[in-house]
């Protein structure tokens, strides 16, 4: 058994946009994910951060094969799942589950909570010991909901409670890996902490591995063992969480971290920010050379021409930059 539950190598996912059609528009390719390599060890939480449009959600969805990868390899639990068909994926999916961002859109409003969670068992033909009803009740209890509420509908719950229902559904088939796509970003601050603590507890109890996709660096910092920073479909930097946050080496990571507000007014007043100019370039037409060079404050001629390869610079720390920041 490999120590990694998930090994993604050189994953690419391109989307074709507007092919022909009545207006005969030019065919374009959106390079949403462009050569991403991720390893998730068993029992580990790997955070995937970046701004909107950087491809982090696409990575999550491709890993679980909701999207077919364009290129690359995905090995899950020692099995190559890159080219598995839909039918063949079914048995795999019971071991890898997803938690979605929007707890209002991800639960069927016409189904009771019981039916929603039960569906996992029915679809995969699993007969839990002691009956489905009992299993659903136990799942609800495990995520901190009243097991008697299984006959209620999603609209009777608050956002935080609905996210707990989504987590219960993901846990039903005792998965090994959970891909969590922005699981707390739709929740209020005080509720967010409850759900983060729940995810923490479940990991300890059940030995889960998480691929945690989020834009909120404070949350990712709190929950992850390792973090990958993405920009325009590529991984810019990858490191152990404490190292990445205390000593970021990639200019983009450094700018990103300096932009995150810290709830400490005196610290904020003396903090120096690296203000990035402009916006994310279009992934349909990414800049040549280093994709970050259009906004980088350290840009040099080499960056505009040559694509930096991701290289390991220290144990547990790699990055893609021609001119990295010195280590702290």
């Amino acid at each position, binding site marked *: 058994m490999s120590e990694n539950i998930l090994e993604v190598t050189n994953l690419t996912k391109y989307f074709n946009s507007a092919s022909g059609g009545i207006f005969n528009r030019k065919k374009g390719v959106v390079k949403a994910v462009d050569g991403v390599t991720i390893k998730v060890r068993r029992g580990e939480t790997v955070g995937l951060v970046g701004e909107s449009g950087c491809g982090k959600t696409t990575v999550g969805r491709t890993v679980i094969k909701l999207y077919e990868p364009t290129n690359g390899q995905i090995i899950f639990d020692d099995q190559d799942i890159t080219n598995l068909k839909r039918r063949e994926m079914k048995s795999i999916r019971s071991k890898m589950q997803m938690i979605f961002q929007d707890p209002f859109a991800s639960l069927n409003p016409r189904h009771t909570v019981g039916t929603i969670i039960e569906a996992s068992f029915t679809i995969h033909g699993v007969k839990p010991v002691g009956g489905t009803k009992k299993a659903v009740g136990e799942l609800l209890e495990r995520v901190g909901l009243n097991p008697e509420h299984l006959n209620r509908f999603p609209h009777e719950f608050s956002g935080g409670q609905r996210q707990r229902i989504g987590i219960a559904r993901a846990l039903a088939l005792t998965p090994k890996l959970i891909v969590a796509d922005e699981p707390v970003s739709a929740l209020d601050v*005080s509720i967010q902490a409850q759900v983060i*603590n729940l995810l923490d507890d479940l990991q300890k109890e059940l030995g889960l591995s998480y691929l945690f996709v989020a834009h909120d660096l*404070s949350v990712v910092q709190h929950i992850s063992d390792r973090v990958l920073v993405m920009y325009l479909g590529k991984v810019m930097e990858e490191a152990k969480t404490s190292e990445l946050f205390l000593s970021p080496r990639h200019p983009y990571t450094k700018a990103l971290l300096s932009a995150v507000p810290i709830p400490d007014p005196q610290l904020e007043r003396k903090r120096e920010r690296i203000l990035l100019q402009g916006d994310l370039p279009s992934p349909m037409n990414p800049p040549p050379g280093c994709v970050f060079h259009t906004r980088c404050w350290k840009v040099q001629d080499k960056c505009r021409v040559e694509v930096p390869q991701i290289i390991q610079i220290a144990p547990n720390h790699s990055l893609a930059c021609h001119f990295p920041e010195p280590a702290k």
Partner: protein
Amino acid sequence: MTKFLEVNNLSVGFPTPDGLVKAANNVSYSVDLGETLAIVGESGSGKSVSNLAVMGLHNPINTQISGSAVLNLPTGPVDVITADTEVVRRLRGKVMSMIFQDPMSALHPYYSVGDQIAEAWSLYNEGSKKDGLKRAQQMLDLVGIPAADKRVNEFPHQFSGGMRQRVMIAMALVNNPSLLIADEPTTALDVTVQAQILSLLKDLQKEFNMAIILITHDLGVVAQVADRVSVMYGGQVVESATADQTFYKSIQPYTIGLLDSIPRVDITGSHRLRSIPGQPPSLINLPAGCAFAPRCSFASEVTDNKCRVVEPELVEKRADHFARCHISAEQLLDISASRAGK
């Protein structure tokens, strides 16, 4: 001392078939020119609703509003709650402006951004359409949109989220208002863009000596820009103080709980977040006594179950530091210090 805007005992209620939704309940706050007041709270705490009332943007037919919101103008004070709708309309966009969370739905998709800014300008200024567009271009330049001369003729969909928010700011400031209400202006934006917009707002405030009310749920943003903070919960202001007092010497259990429950990017290492148990209250059926009591970890320190029976008042507990709690400031600070030590 009178401040530029003084909101006093403002209540906003929406009658529904299920009962009256008390969205804002005796809310008081004030902000002066050149000052930034942050109003912090979770969804449903009444922060937007009370400021929409200040702007006069509630539909009078299905809203019950009471209290006062006085603008101390050079020409004399005006209470925008009781004033004639026509008077308030003449203040809107001229003296007070608002920017919203979602810059896409706040801009009209069929008109160029220049036209939309020029329209706001022409309401209060004499001049041709050409003058208006010239002014629009100046404003776009001011808010940091590159190539403003070309972009003034472009449409909202041609702008990115951050650029659209800049357009909104340009439109709100085209008539040099004295009060800007920014309702979650950076919530829909990425952090790098958020940093740009916040620093832009700070610069513009210095330039125009504006009063800014920033409505947000993000305590990091508050720490970055606010001079004063009002924390709202269950439709009420529960604490009001300077930013430093709020963050370092809070004397209100909800604020303390909120500050404890957020992860910080600058503190690494795994510690458990201290979350606030339970859910925010229903605004139709507010709990008796203190609205926060059912979730409060300090309520057990008060005898006779007082928190569940008697509603605490917002009182000045220390110099310029107001809080709504039955526990004394000293006792609260002692308890939270001993808890932090554990």
